[in-house]
Each structure stands twice: as C-alpha cells, then as structure tokens.
C-alpha cells in the first residue's frame, strides 16, 4: 500500500501547491523568488518540498545569480560539484549547458541517478533555473525513492537494510569512463582519475534527515556493487533495483520553461535527463545544497 504524500489536513496559507502526479512533483505559485522570503513562506516552501520531493516554480522573473543564491539558501548551505563550471563572480552557481551543434556527445545525466553519490556526503538538494530552454524537448524525469522503498516486500526490505553499497565516479569520470562509446565533450571538467575511482560506502536503505522516512539509495551511474559481495553477485540484485526504482508509478516528467526554478531532493529522488533536442541549445544554472553523511 503506497502512502499518500500530501496529508489532507495540511493547508498552505501563503503559497499554492499543485501536485503534478500521485507520486512526486508539485508546482508552486504565489511566491516571487526575486523578493525577500519571510520565515512562514520559507517554512511552507520547505514543507511542500519534503511532501512532494520535487517542486518547481513555473512563473518566476529572470532571477539574477544573487537572487538565485538567495532563493537556494532556503534549502541549506551551498557546495560545488567538482566537475561542473561555475559562472564568474558567483562560483556557487554552476552551469549545465549543451550547445546546438553538440550531437556526438553523451547527454549529461542521461541515465537514472542521484547526483554525486561518489562523495562522502552527497548533496541534499539541487536548485536549478531555466536559462536557455528549447521550445520542445529536454524534460527531466524524476522517481520517488521513498515509494521505491515502501513498495518492496518485507523480506527484501530486511535484506537490503543490512547492506551497504560501494559508490564511485569511475564510470562517469574515472577509469571505466574510458571504455564508453561517447564522452561528455567540454561541458564538464575532467576529474583526476584517481579521485574519480575513489570508493565510498552508503547504506542501501537510508533514513532522510528531514522526514525520518526511509528511501532506496542505489543508482546506475555511481553504485558499483554491495560491500562484501563481488560485482557478479551484486549485479542481478542491482539490476532489479534499477528497474524497480524508476517505475513510472513512482515518477513524474517535468517540462522546463525559461526562468522556471526547480528543486529536487537529491536523496529521495532519482532523475534522468532526456536528450531529445539535437540542434538546440539548452542551459540550466544550478546551486547545489550540501548534505551530511547518510544513515
């Protein structure tokens, strides 16, 4: 039985929250992020964020980098992703860009994943803003990992709760990336191979610091194997979990607009970029919110 995300008694006084699907995602209107946000509105935005895992603000003015940072600070303190470029003077605002002429490179984030789980303390959230958006295409898919956990059988939950997974950036940026057909072009930094191959451990089932709910935490891009198991032993279970965690009934698909601000919970949501806009430029700017070690 899936738990409904939005409790009926939770009324928002200051903002409007419209869920996009029954599983994840909500549009927020009635707030202008270029203006100072008072404590009560901040609290309501955070509530909507925790309840819906992904929130987006479709009707925003063109935020300046300073306003983008101010809005992002609602969600926590900033960190920088090592392989992304920042904008001059505002290094905490980093760029996701694909040129119109770029056809032979892989789309960054084109596989289901959570960002930067190769770090000891992966980001807790990402606050993005649409800068150049193709007239059609380039949507982002999201999947709710609370629901992915809750839908597992009791015995599977028990088995996975005892496991940790090994994560590294090897496939994205390290040794294993050399074996892939397509590289990423110049839109991302080259990381030191040794740093990219460094392995870290995270529990497979984690508890969210803000909601106290459990979520499934493995992803196709960074998870290598289970701790204490061989890659061969791990693979069938991981393949099952990858198929499971991206089920359509856990997900939503968000269409971008220029100036739209979107926030995803980088612990409880996985995401996937759709590269269906060859011949068009697309640019998002993002501020990454720091997280803690996972428990």
């Amino acid at each position, binding site marked *: 039985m899936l738990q409904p995300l939005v409790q009926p008694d939770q009324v928002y006084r200051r903002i409007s929250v419209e869920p996009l699907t029954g599983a994840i995602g909500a549009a927020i209107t009635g707030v202008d992020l270029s203006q100072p946000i008072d*404590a009560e509105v901040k609290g309501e*935005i955070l509530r909507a964020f925790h309840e819906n895992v992904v929130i987006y603000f479709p009707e925003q003015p063109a935020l300046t980098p300073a306003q983008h940072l101010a809005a992002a*600070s609602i969600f*926590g*303190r900033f960190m920088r992703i090592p392989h992304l470029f920042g904008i001059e003077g505002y290094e905490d605002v980093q760029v996701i860009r694909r040129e119109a002429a770029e056809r032979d490179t892989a789309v960054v984030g084109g596989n289901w994943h959570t960002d930067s789980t190769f770090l000891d303390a992966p980001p807790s959230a990402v606050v993005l803003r649409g800068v150049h958006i193709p007239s059609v295409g380039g949507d982002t898919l999201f999947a709710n990992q609370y629901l992915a956990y809750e839908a597992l059988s009791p015995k599977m939950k028990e088995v996975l709760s005892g496991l940790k997974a090994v994560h590294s950036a090897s496939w994205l940026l390290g040794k294993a990336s050399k074996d892939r057909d397509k590289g990423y072009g110049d839109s991302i930094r080259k990381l030191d191979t040794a740093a990219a191959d460094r392995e870290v451990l995270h529990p497979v089932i984690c508890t969210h610091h803000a909601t*106290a709910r459990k979520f499934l935490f493995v992803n196709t891009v960074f998870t290598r194997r289970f701790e204490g198991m061989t890659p061969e032993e791990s693979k069938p279970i991981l393949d099952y979990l990858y198929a499971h965690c991206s089920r359509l009934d856990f997900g939503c698909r968000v269409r971008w607009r220029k100036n739209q601000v979107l926030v995803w919970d980088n612990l409880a949501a996985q995401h996937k970029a759709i590269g269906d806009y060859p011949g068009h430029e697309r640019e998002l700017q993002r501020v990454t919110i720091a997280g*803690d070690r996972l428990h």
Partner: protein
Amino acid sequence: MALSIKPLHPLFAAEVSGIDLKQPVDPATFREVIAAMDRYGVCVYRGQNLPDEPHIAFSRLFGTLELRPTVRKAAKHLRFNHPELFDAGNIDIDGNILPEDDLQRAYSRGNKLWHTDSSHRQTRAAYSLLNAHIVPPEGADTEFADMRVAYDRLPETMKARIDKLVCVHDVWYSRMLGGYPEPTAEERKVRPPCYHRLVQYHHGSGRKTLYLASHASHIQGMPVEEGRALLKQLIGMATPPEAIYRHKWQGGDLVVWDNTCTMHRATDFPDFTYKRDLRRTTVEEAPDAARLAIAS
C-alpha cells in the same frame, strides 16, 4: 567565506568554525549561519571570547532582541548595562558567588527543567545566544534535545492524539516547580499565561515539531492534572539519553539554539565553589519579518 560544519551528535547539533564573530558578518556568510541553524537546531562556536557589544551585534542579525524582564531583583544582581543581556550566572555585581537564600538562585533553579526560552511569552523566542565568559572547571553542562526528532519518533497514535492541542504556558508555574516563592499579584499581572499549539511547523526546516517546555502548565480543554501528566509523558519521550546533546562549556564558547525546535536544561555543578558567568541574548520570533535578505 565558507563555514566549516562538524556535526556533534547523530541527530542534530553542530560545531561551526571558520568565522570570527568579533568581525562584521557579511550577508552570504550569515545565510550559511542560518542554514546551519535550520538544519542542526544548536550551533556551537568555540573560542570566540566575545565581549558584550559584538555578542549583541551578532545577535541583532537574527532579529529583534528581547529585553530583560523586571523581576524582584536587588540592584546587586543587575550586572549588565545592556538591557538585552540575560544573566545565566551565579555571581553578583561585585563578582561574588550568590548566597544560598538569594532569590535569583531560586528563580534560576527552574532552568534545570527541560524547557525552551520564553515559551511563556505570546511572542515566542526564535533564537538564544549564550556566551560563556567564566565557566566552572566541572559540571554545569547544558543538555539539548531536538523536538523535530522527538515528534518524528512519537507513535502515530500519540501524534494523532496531540495534533490539535493547545498548551497554557506560565513562567510562574516553572519557577514554582524550581522552588521560587508564590509570585505576587503584580508579578502575575506583568507576566500572564499564554497559549501555544503543541504541534507546530518549524519554519526553518518545514518539519513538524513539538513546542514543549516545563513552562507549560496544562493543556487547554483538558483537566489540569490530566494535561500535566500528558506533558510530563511527552517531555520524557522527547528526551531519552540517546537523543540528548550534552554541551560541555569552555570559556569563550558561544552557543546558539533555535527555541522553536529544541529544548534544553541546565545541569548541576558545585555552585557555591565555582563562579559561572554566562550571558544570553534572546531573539524574538518575527514570522512576517524578511529574515532572508537578498544579497546585493
């Protein structure tokens, strides 16, 4: 400037370093200060050694400061020129340890009960900033517990039972629990009881939290003794040993806590032997104030 954050407990509380609070704090850095407060509830700044003026100046960045209440106090207790400073020590104006029968001692004893500051005022306190000038060599730790965690850990039946309850908070109730004499009619009139929802949303995190304190005398619409028993039960459930961060004070510490999502209590020390001089500022909650200024 990027602050360095080191969690002090698995559930909440962090040490913040990489900042000198004697210097002006720029808006971007202050946003990190607030982000750390929202996440951890209690933030410890070691080795700041703040004089009163920068203590008050840093506190003002968080909002409007509460002024010290006027209670039955002899002039020898009014140690500070600044009305924003609350006395959390055991010495008089000349630096002498207060005698056993001193009213200030009786007043402070209530602080050894789990509470959150100023819940007995209708305008709640958002933050307290406690600055250690002199700390005793042993004891006098302050214990903290996160009420968002406490709420999350309650059984669903209890969450449903308490969801709409309103508590009556009365400073004289917790003072009398601590051994302070029956308040005068004037004292009661100046500081009357007030009312707060037991379960609230914490603005800084969007999480549900318990707003609980030993100042809570009873629960509205419930027989007094029944309400007191429920409050006592909840305070017990909210403060199991594994959920407590116990702060061991060092001279020069500044500890900042969010009163809207934590409780705390003082613990014993040989307080006729050692001097303790701690000074607190208290920031009023201002839900409509634009606390997150846009950086220029």
